[in-house]
């Protein structure tokens, strides 16, 4: 009788534990990009208007790929990727890793600039200079780590392959983590959940085109022109019309060169 009672108790505890786990479980399905233009249009494309049944744009447990249109667009693509990373990671850890080639060509992440984009000081981890092979290894290991909110991988050359991305996808799928890769367009198609093509546009804008979205309808190919919503700078650009009060401005005040 006693054993039956204790097993009952154990069952109840297990049930409660399960309930707690459900409560504590982070949103597994995914998040939106945080840009209303994109989220809205994709919702429309999905053909569902009620917000309850919406499918989030960036699913968790998947690899997302951001491609700069040309090599020079890489900083813009990186900026967009950081935006996505933050949407996914929220307050959790962001692990940034890049190949030595990328470091040589474009440099290292610079925290004072990233702060403006909303990256927290204590949520940033950086794995410097693994070789191209170790870079994939770091991505895979970090993708399997439950405590990394989002992994950001940057490479400057054709280091990615279908097999590699497939491996990474399976790995993050298993651990329900998310990964954002920034790399130039590769030779072959990659096994990623989404692919975004980003180029820089005038006046601090990004031109973003969604090229691929696994298992869902693509909206008509029409790029979004997005203005990143980061903290405004201490001094801003000169706009092409406001050159009235230049005489009063200090030496470091905005200048303008377009007539």
């Amino acid at each position, binding site marked *: 009788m006693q054993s039956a009672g204790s097993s009952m108790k154990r069952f109840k*505890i297990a049930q409660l534990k399960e309930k*707690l786990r459900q409560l504590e479980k982070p949103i597994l399905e995914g998040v939106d990009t945080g840009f209303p233009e994109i989220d809205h249009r994709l919702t429309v494309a999905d053909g569902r208007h009620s917000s309850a049944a919406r499918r989030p744009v960036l699913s968790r447990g998947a690899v997302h790929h951001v491609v700069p249109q040309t090599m*020079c*667009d*890489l*900083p*813009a693509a*990186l*900026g967009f990727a*950081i935006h996505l990373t933050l949407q996914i990671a929220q307050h959790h*850890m962001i*692990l940034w890793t890049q190949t030595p080639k990328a*470091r040589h060509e*474009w*440099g*290292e*992440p*610079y*925290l*004072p*600039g*990233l*702060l*403006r984009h909303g990256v927290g*000081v*204590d949520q*940033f*981890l*950086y*794995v*410097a200079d693994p070789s191209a092979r170790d870079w994939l*290894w*770091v991505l895979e*290991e970090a993708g399997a*780590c*439950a*405590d*990394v909110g989002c992994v950001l991988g940057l490479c400057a050359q054709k280091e990615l392959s279908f097999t590699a991305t497939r491996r990474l996808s399976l790995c993050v799928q298993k651990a329900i983590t998310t990964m954002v890769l920034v790399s130039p367009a590769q030779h072959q198609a990659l096994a990623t959940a989404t692919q975004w093509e980003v*180029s*820089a*546009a*005038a*006046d601090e*804008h990004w031109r973003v085109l969604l090229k691929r979205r696994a298992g869902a309808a693509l909206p008509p190919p029409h790029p979004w022109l997005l203005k990143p919503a980061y*903290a*405004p*700078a*201490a*001094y*801003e*650009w*000169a706009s092409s019309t406001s050159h009235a009060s230049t005489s009063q401005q*200090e*030496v*470091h005040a*905005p*200048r*303008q*060169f*377009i007539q």
Partner: protein
Amino acid sequence: MEASRRFVVIWFSDWLANISCPSEMRPACVIEERSMGAYLVAANATAQKLNIHAGQRLSEARVLAPELVTYPVDWAKSTRHLQRVARWANRFTPWVGYDPVADGLILDITGCAHLFGGERALLDHIVTQLARHAISARAACAGTIGAAWALAHHAPTTPVILPQGQEAEALMPLSVKALRLSDEQYRLCRQFGLDRISHIMRQPRASLVQRLGAGVIERLDQAFGQVAETVDPLRPPTRFHVTHVPLMPIQSREEVMFVLSNLVDDLVAELHRAGRGARRIDVRLIRTDRAVLSVSLALSHPIQLATHIVRLLTERLEHVQIRLDQDLAIEQLEMLASQTDIMSAHQDALFTSLRQGQKQALAHLCDRILARLGQAPTRPLLRGRYMPEKVVRFIPITEPLLEPPLKTPLKTPLEPWSSPQKSEGAITPEAHIRKGWLAARPIILLPHAEQIDVIAEIPEGAPRRFRWRRRLYEVVMAAGPERISPEWWCEELPHSPDAMGQTKASLTRDYFRLEDSNGYRFWLYRDGLFTRETVLPRWYMHGFFA
């Protein structure tokens, strides 16, 4: 027990010459460039015959031997070689230490000599083996370190073995230098006419202390065994040490891993009993040719988890070349936890928080990255510096892993990325963030600023167009300049002027934020104020905005 200890002191009499110019038959010397010119730090045997010795100026030595060959001194190489020899000496006794006074080793061979056929055979073996590697060595064995040292350095012939209790007769005729005196102490002794140890022995102790200081007396007592002295061992003895000697030497990697995983289990069991976790694990594989392969694992937090350690070891050994075949096999495997910490017990409660487990996951990830890449993941530390490239430093994640959370950065002065010239006066970085604006800083910064060709309308203005990496960019919008002054308070002194007659170290930089016709956004600076600091300021590309 104290009376029966036995020490061997090995002195490499021509150490630097031996390792810098091993097979040089001509007169050769090792020189070091000092502010007063080149000085000799060692001379080889041929040169010593010509009365050339360490401490001479090179010019003096050249007078004595015009054909003198010189080698630059390499202290790092010297240290490296000494470490290797010390590791080699570990085969005679586990207790090997460096001689703090001279190039040499001190071995505590108490209870070890019989394994090598007695002390005489042991010393002969040591000296001949070193001679085979072109290292001239003098060795002596005695009951105290002091006596062994004195004999190794000053006995007329070596190797010498001094039986217990005969220190007095053996040391009496030697120079006082044999007592390991400092230059100052030696000078004092000479002043008082005390040339030999026997002279000192004859003096009353009280007056000796007054005249020469307590140091000399201490050295004397150490040599005669009145005061105990021990060796600082190279490999500190550890409590957590497991060894395995296989019946047959191991020839395959898989077997090595298998034995190692068994050893890990033993080690973890020992750690568990002691309630400690390993912070550093050293593995030594000893091959049949006595080559030792050492692998060390540093762990970010104390660990008792066997599976985790085995996983790290596997990753670590993957990158290590071990040559194994019929003749070269592993005959002994050792594993020791050279650093341990108290393991804080985890309670598996009903409400085991997910977070605890997650933190563990991150720590394990860091360990694995450290084991494979040889460097831990880094986290950024903001520092109160002005120069943009010095504002952030990436520091590896070490012991207090993310806990306590990094609070310091925002507390440190952050003027560099606030705008110092802003008219609102001194604004704290917290206020910057609260107000929602920060100084514009790029998201990526080039490892080294790259020089670019710039066309500007006026010398002090922003660029109109510029060429970077062989491509021309038309500037459409510009913001700036933001002036960043050199850090005179923490800067190295300016270097010698370069070809352009400019000093390289410290120039004021004027940073500009530019956007070109395609929308690419750059951060570049003009190095030096026009006409005030430099005639021809150069421009550099430094970073990129998103």
